[in-house]
């Protein structure tokens, strides 16, 4: 009898412990999912140069450096999705040099941002970050404004990397030129 009660008590505690972090995560989840959808949707409005995306069915690789929670959300979000005929794949770079092969690269706040941006520059990578201010090497910066995610486009960086961003996209963004 006592053993039985103990078992139930243990179970209740275990379930409560298991649920607790989920609830914490779900509070953050919309923000992660919105950002992940953002990355995915960005792919719709960008044209890469011919040698970066050779034909309409070439895959587009989205890389997430750092922020492992976000990386897995992105993986879930783009799972089985495509943009036009481009299949979307997700990659977690092991080193900064691997960013060169990404079409879109999100550089997390827990990485050395400047080093990453330098490594990606010159490889036609659409770099996305969430730093507090605009960065000369970053193409798109995400920021929160009245609890809404908004974005800023560095047109200088975009043209240096020969990325054509759709005017529809630009009409929604804050524009800077660094």
């Amino acid at each position: 009898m006592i053993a039985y009660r103990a078992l139930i008590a243990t179970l209740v505690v275990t379930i409560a412990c298991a649920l607790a972090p989920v609830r914490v995560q779900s509070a953050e989840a919309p923000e992660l999912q919105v950002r992940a959808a953002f990355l995915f949707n960005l792919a719709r409005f960008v044209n890469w140069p011919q040698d970066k995306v050779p034909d309409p069915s070439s895959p587009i690789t989205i890389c997430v450096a750092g922020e492992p929670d976000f990386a897995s959300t992105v993986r879930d979000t783009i799972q089985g999705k495509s943009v036009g005929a481009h299949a979307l794949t997700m990659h977690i770079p092991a080193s900064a040099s691997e960013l060169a092969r990404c079409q879109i690269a999100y550089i997390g706040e827990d990485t050395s941002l400047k080093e990453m941006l330098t490594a990606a520059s010159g490889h036609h990578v659409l770099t996305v970050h969430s730093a507090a201010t605009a960065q000369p090497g970053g193409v798109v910066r995400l920021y929160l404004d009245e609890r809404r995610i908004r974005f800023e486009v560095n047109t200088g960086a975009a043209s240096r990397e020969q990325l054509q961003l759709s005017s529809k996209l630009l009409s929604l963004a804050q524009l800077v030129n660094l």
Partner: protein
Amino acid sequence: MFTRNRFLRQFSNQPIRRKLTLLMALSSSVGLILSGVALISYAWNSARSTAIRDVQSVAQISADSTAAALVFGDVVAARELLSALRSKPEVDSACLYTEDGDASALFAQYLQNGVSPCPATAAKVGIHEHLRGLSLVREVEQNGDRIGWLQVQVNLQPLTHTLMVQVGITVAILAASFAVSLGIAWLMQPALAGPILDLAGVARRISESGDYTLRARRLGSDEVGRLVDDFNSMLDQIAIRDRDIETARDALSQQVSEKTAANQDLLEALDRLQQTQAQLVQSERLASLGGLVAGVAHEINTPVGVGVTAASTLQDRARDLEQAYKTDTLRRSDLERFVEVARESSNIILRNLQRAADLIQSFKQVAVDQSSGERRRFDLRNYIDEVLLSLAPRTKKTGHRIVVECPPDLEVDSYPGALAQVLTNFVSNSLLHAFPDGHSGELRISAQRSGDWIELHYSDNGSGIPPQDLKRIYDPFFTTKRGSGGSGLGLHIVYNLVQQILGGTIEAASEIGAGTRFTVRFPAHLKSKP
């Protein structure tokens, strides 16, 4: 179908004036209605397709411009982009929907004045028409992926209003032109209907009065004018025909009376002919009776002659015997010889007298039958023999073989005289016509019973009768021996006797060179006197 027929019937009962007026007015207004309907529907269709093209391009532009805002969830930007449609007053509303799982959810909207609020979910893709106008639903795409829907609704009421004004104007024009064409038709119809009515009036007067001298008046040289001409010439022809018919009728009645007179003559001639025929039959009878008497004389002459010779021989011998007895020179042998001669002579005399008596008996019978025409029972075989016996004087010297095939005891109840005359004619024809070159042949008579009838065949194996003559042998006075013993009445009388007296039939068959054959059928027992 029924109503159509009734309509047509009612229409065709209308006076021609009204028909013409109606036709003219109707046809002109039908043309007007058709062209009005065509114009209005063309205007409506082209206005509508212009509106559709407009709303399509508006939707295209709006969908394109709001794609990014839709994707990035920027409602404010989307609303701002949609409100650019303010410059298009016909656009009532524009509604942008985002994908919400499998369904759609309203994302942003632009409403011009709140008349057409956006539904909560997007309608089916395509064009929808409703009272106020039409709405178009299309997908919002980016890179070929569907990211939402856009619905644009336009107000076509101004267009409809313009159209209604057009319809009103057209109907007014229609009514006016119907009235005008009715007036024109009313003014015009006497020109068309007048001559026809005139013609109809003349026709009616003629049929009522029977006066074919009336003529219709010709008012123009169109088809009706020609009709009037034809009508008049038809009247001319009717008049001529009437006259012709009158003449023909007169001629006919004259002919009829002439024919009647001729008929009368013919009847009289026929009557005379029949009388002549009866007389001829009578005289033929007398003639054959005369022949019979001659035959009898000839036939009896022989036995009587033989008897006379025998009697005179006996007389001579008796005188010789008497002489010898008186002179006492009578010898026994003389007496014996006389007895011998006397017996022989008396035998001869008796035999020949008997024969003469027989002949007379049978001639008497034939002669009685022929002249009296008496009906009686007789034995056919015997009677044929008797007839042949009476013909013997003529047949014997020709050397023809005469064959009779007839069963004995064949009793017949009929007119033997007629039968004798028939057979006599057959035989004398064979003698006269069948063997022109004089050599002898065969005459054959055969008779047998066949049911209630006697079938009698007579044939010779002489020259035969050519087919064209065979058809005419029974005709009175048909003969091939005119002027040399033929009168052409023999077979005619035979025919009448067989038909009228014996109550039977006769057929003739002949083949040139092979002979002639007559078949006579008559009742074995005649029912009653003909």
